[in-house]
Structures are given as C-alpha cells and as structure tokens.
C-alpha cells in the first residue's frame, strides 16, 4: 500500500492509486489498451534486454549521464548553500524529456505499435518524441495548443524538421491542457495501432509510474555523483513543476532519505493572489481530469479553469498524482515562483554562469535565489536544470524589449 509511512517509494497500489490520487479515469474504449500497456510495461521493465537497449540509447544517443555541476559563481553570489546544477539541459534535444521518450518509444516498438502521438506544451516533449520517432522510423503526430505554437515557434520548426506533424489545437485556452484533450481524442479513435507517449507523470495509470521510472535516472545519477563529489547525500533538492516529471525524476530516489529536504516549485504566474497562475497544488483542489484524480485548478462546480504562466511547459491546470500524494503526506514542500521572478532568475543565470535556462527551469532557479542565501554554507543544494532556454530566446527578448 502506498500509504505505508516507512517508505514513500512503494506506490502506487495495483489500481494505480497513490492514496486517493491517480487511478484510471478514461473512456471504456481505452481501458483495455491501458491494461495492455501496463502489462507490456511491466514485462519490459523486468526484461534485461529492454533495460540494456534503453541504457545504451540514453548513454550513446542521449548523452547521459548529465553532469552534476558545481555552480561556483552562483554559489558565491548567493552567499549560502553550495549550489549544484543537474545539467539535464545538456541532454540530446535539450531537456530531461528525452529520458522518458526513449523509454516509451522503445516500448511502443516492442508492442508493435505503428504510430506515436504526443501532447506538448513548451515543445520540449514534442521535440523529444519527434526525435525518437525519427530514430525508430515511426510516424509521429504532436498536438500543441495554438497559443504555444506561437510562443514556442523554434520548437515547432524543430519538430517539423524531424518529420513530425504538429497539429495546432485551437479549442479552450489553446495550451497544454487542450493539446492533451485532443491527443486523447485521437488516441480513442486510433488506439489499436497508436501509442500515446505522455510527456509527464500524469494521465491514467500506468503513465504516472512509468514516466517516473524513466525519469528516475536523474535522481539516481545525482545520488552517485554527489557521493563522488562530496562524499555524502545532498541536503536540499529543488525542481520546477508543471506536470512534474523532472521533479519526480530527481525527487523519487531520495524520498526515503529523511535528511534530504525536497522542494517543488510551481508556476505562480502573476501571483497566487491574482488567480492567474498554474499552481495546482497551492491554488487548486483534488478532482478528475485527463485520466487521473489529482490537484486541479477548477471552479466551485468542477469546471477546469485556465492556467497562466509565462512558461508554456508549466501552463497546465493539473499535476501528476504522486505529487498530490506527496503534498498530502508532507514529504515534499511545494512553493511557487512568479513570471517576473522566473524572468529575473533567467537573466541572472545567463550572466552568472553562462547558461541560458529554459523558462520552466528558471522557476526552480527563482526559488533557489530565495532559498540558498538562507541556508548554511555546507548545505548541498541540487537544482534540476531541466531544460535549456534556446526555445525561449525570442519570447524573452521580446518581453525585455530586445531586438531579435
């Protein structure tokens, strides 16, 4: 049972529940396919050949392990904790998304699926999926909100170049949530041949677990790398959260280490009090959407409200169910950073470390700017630098009044 307190790492139960969260809230048409996926995933997970192939791809193609970089100038500047950056932005395709996608597309191939679909917000998951599909020669369709197609134009071009078809979704708020609706609609019509490659630790069971497992390579590496660098475990972990996959990948391997303080940073948009944000855990309540029960931004009736964030990748009114459970268990602290704070952090990292972070990761960074100065100098803090900011250059430049 997931609620046993001597471990936070045993969930979910066999129905995909983390406490009350998670589960499988999908149309009956999809249910048999989801059960089939669960079975196929469990078999693949236990198959040394699958694991070996994945490891080879992650290393030789994805560029793993990603460095755990001691950010010396940043540390000096902040004057507190010793700040390490987990350099997921150095992975092939520029973010942590490739870890999960290589696993899922390998699984799709193993299951004999002949088409892959994906939803994307910032386009990082879309680019990663398009990349893996090019590698495996599988047709790929990526659903992306029309608003995101505009604000993340470089990634749309990348997906097209990689041979994927990008479908702009105009319904609703025309962002990540609507892209996911449309992907699910496609899937229900094509499920016998199509593999739905979900980009985050959300959706119906087994997705939250499967994506988590594929992303745990981040935390597993950090554990080893920190032992090598400092001879002990980190004291503090910080990661940004939209659906929560980069955070879960970093956090999960440390959940049972009580000395490790873990902090997830949601997108505060224009501020929690403004109502215009994407902080489902801080500003929402439990409900059912996209196949799982989790914290959602919604009105009194249960209608889903629109999320707001400068970062397309965090602009989602829900969150992975395991995060909802970890919040209720009190194991992980969840905080938020606003658009302005993220923008400020974005610029400061560029100049202090010569690294252009993704706007998503800049939210985690904004919290590091607040937190690190309050911590002792021997506090080892790891921030997951989940993606690089090349895709955000046009948007940030425009916002700062720079010419591109």
């Amino acid at each position, binding site marked *: 049972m997931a609620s046993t307190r001597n471990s936070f790492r045993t969930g979910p139960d066999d129905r995909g529940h983390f406490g009350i969260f998670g589960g499988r809230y999908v*149309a009956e048409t999809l249910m048999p396919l989801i059960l089939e996926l669960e079975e196929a995933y469990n078999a693949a997970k236990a198959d040394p050949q699958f694991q070996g192939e994945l490891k080879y791809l992650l290393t030789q193609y994805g560029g793993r392990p990603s460095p755990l970089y001691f950010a010396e100038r940043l540390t000096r500047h902040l004057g507190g904790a010793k700040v390490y950056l987990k350099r997921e932005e150095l992975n092939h395709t520029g973010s942590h998304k490739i870890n999960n996608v290589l696993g899922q597309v390998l699984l799709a191939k193993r299951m004999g699926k002949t088409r892959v679909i994906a939803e994307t917000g910032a386009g990082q998951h879309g680019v990663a999926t398009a990349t893996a599909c090019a590698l495996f020669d599988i047709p790929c369709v990526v659903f992306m909100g029309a608003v995101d197609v505009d604000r993340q134009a470089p990634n749309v071009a990348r997906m097209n170049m990689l041979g994927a078809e990008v479908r702009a979704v105009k319904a609703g708020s025309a962002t990540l949530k609507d892209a996911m609706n449309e992907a699910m609609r496609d899937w229900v*019509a094509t499920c016998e041949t199509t593999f739905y490659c979900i980009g985050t630790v959300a959706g119906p069971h087994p997705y939250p677990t499967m994506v988590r497992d594929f992303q745990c390579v981040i935390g597993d590496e950090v554990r080893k790398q920190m032992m090598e660098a400092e001879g002990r475990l980190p004291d503090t972990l910080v990661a940004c959260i939209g659906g929560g996959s980069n955070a879960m990948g970093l956090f999960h391997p440390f959940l049972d280490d009580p000395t490790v303080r873990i902090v997830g940073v949601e997108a505060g948009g224009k501020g929690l009090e403004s109502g215009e944000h994407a902080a489902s855990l801080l500003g929402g309540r439990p409900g059912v959407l*996209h196949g799982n029960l989790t914290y959602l931004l919604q009105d009194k009736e249960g209608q889903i409200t629109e999320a707001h964030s400068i970062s397309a990748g965090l602009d989602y009114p829900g969150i992975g169910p395991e995060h909802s459970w970890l919040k209720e268990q009190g194991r992980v602290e969840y905080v938020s950073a606003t658009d302005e704070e993220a923008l400020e952090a974005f610029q400061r990292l560029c100049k202090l470390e010569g690294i252009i972070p993704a706007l998503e990761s800049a939210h985690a960074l904004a919290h590091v700017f607040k937190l690190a100065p309050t911590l002792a100098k021997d506090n080892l803090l790891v921030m997951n630098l989940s993606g690089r900011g090349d895709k955000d250059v046009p948007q940030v430049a425009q916002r700062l009044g720079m010419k591109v």
Partner: protein
Amino acid sequence: MSRIAKRFAALKADKRAGLVTYVTAGDPDPGLSYQILKGLPAAGADLIELGMPFTDPMADGPSIQLAGQRALKAGITVDATFDMVRRFRKETGDNETPILLMGYYNLVYQRGAERFCKEAAQAGIDGFILVDLPPEEADQLKPYAQAAGIDTVLLTAPTTDDKRLPAVLKYASGFVYFVSVLGITGTKSAPEEAVRTHVERIKRHTPLPVGVGFGIKTPDQAAAVARHADAAVVGSAIVDRVKAGLDDKGTPKPDLLPGVFAYVKALADGVRGVRKT
C-alpha cells in the same frame, strides 16, 4: 422497477426498439434547453440523455464540444440541470420517460458522489452515464447510486472483449451502452454488420437491454441499429440541429425548436418502422 426498466419492458411489449436522444443541458440557453427537453417525448424520444457540460470533454467530437461551450457561456450549472428535470417532471406530468445524466466524473466528484446521487434522484433523474468512470473506478459511485435508486449505465466498446465484459457488467444497470466505433462522439459510423455482431456478443453475457450509439446521423442508420439493438442513441446530430437553429451571432432563430423536433421525429419514425419479433 425503475423507469428505465419499465420503459424497456414497454418497448419490448410494443415489439420495437427505442430512441434515446442526447441533448446538452443549457444549450443554447437554459430557457430553450428546457423547451427542447419538454418537447422531446412528443417528438418520439423514448429515453432522454441530458449532457452535463464540462470544460474538457475528452470523449466528445466538435458538435458536443461546441454545445457544451454554448451552455457554459449561457451559465448552466449542475443545480440548474437538476432544476430542469424537476420542472419537467412537475410541469409535463411525464413520470415515465427516463432521463439520464451523461457527462464526466469531476462534476460528480466535486459535489460528493453521495450527495450528487441523492439530489439527482430527488430531481427525477433515473440514470448516469459517466464517460470517464470505467469499472476500475466505478466502486466509488455505485453504492450511492444504488441507494438512491439510480441506474449506472456503463459503456462497452469494440475493444471490450469477452474476457473483460463481465467486469463492466458487474456495475451496469438499466441498460448497456455499446459505443459502436473507436473514437469520439459524432464522427465515424459503424457498419450494420459490426453492430449486429457486437450486440449479439454482449447479449450472451447479460439480460440487460443494449443501446447502441456514436455516429448515428440519419433515420436510416437509426433503423439499421434498431434492427439489432434495443435502442439507438443519437446525440451529435441532434445537437447539430440546435446549432443550425442559431444565427451567425448565436442568437436563436424562430425555427430552432421545430427544426430539432422534426429531426427527432424523423429518427423516431426510422426506429419505429422496424418491427421486432
């Protein structure tokens, strides 16, 4: 005996299949939506599905998505939906036509399953069809629905094989809703032969009546389904008639109600033209 069971018994005695009509509650506005609901039985609807609009209707095609948006914009709420049914029972005196709520589970969950079931039953609602509540999660609703006397109509799909059917049927009551195509509402249509095969297969597992829906657009298609199933369910095509009754600005035209009812009558004629043995 529930209204749904009684209605199917009556249809059987009549030697014909039933017509189940779906409309979205509050579309195009609460007032007209009530007029539509009120007029459906006379137009030939044997059972009525009332859709509860949801911001993220993942199983619905464009027609029902748009209908939901019109209704939400016009201010539909769960309470207003209950009130529509209450008023229908009171004003028309129709205590026989079953009314089922169709929609997504979050609206039920937010009110609390127990309270939702009680209030729905008090309003005169007979059944639920919750698209995203498969048998794997149905145990959180079923006891409350049962206690309130509300039928839970579960969906089966072409992907629901013989091995899985018993799990679905464990929670099903009223009738079994067969989703005849892989896909969302209002898009593809199933060939008659496929409908026949699946209905026969489902009937080997259950004595419950079988309704077939998704993609039925014409009286002929409704008649084809009626030859094999106990009921034909039509939704998107009716909702399209509501839309056709609106002008470019979304203002209702005088022919909206007659247009909807004439279409439902044509469907009903199609279904009623099929004599069952």
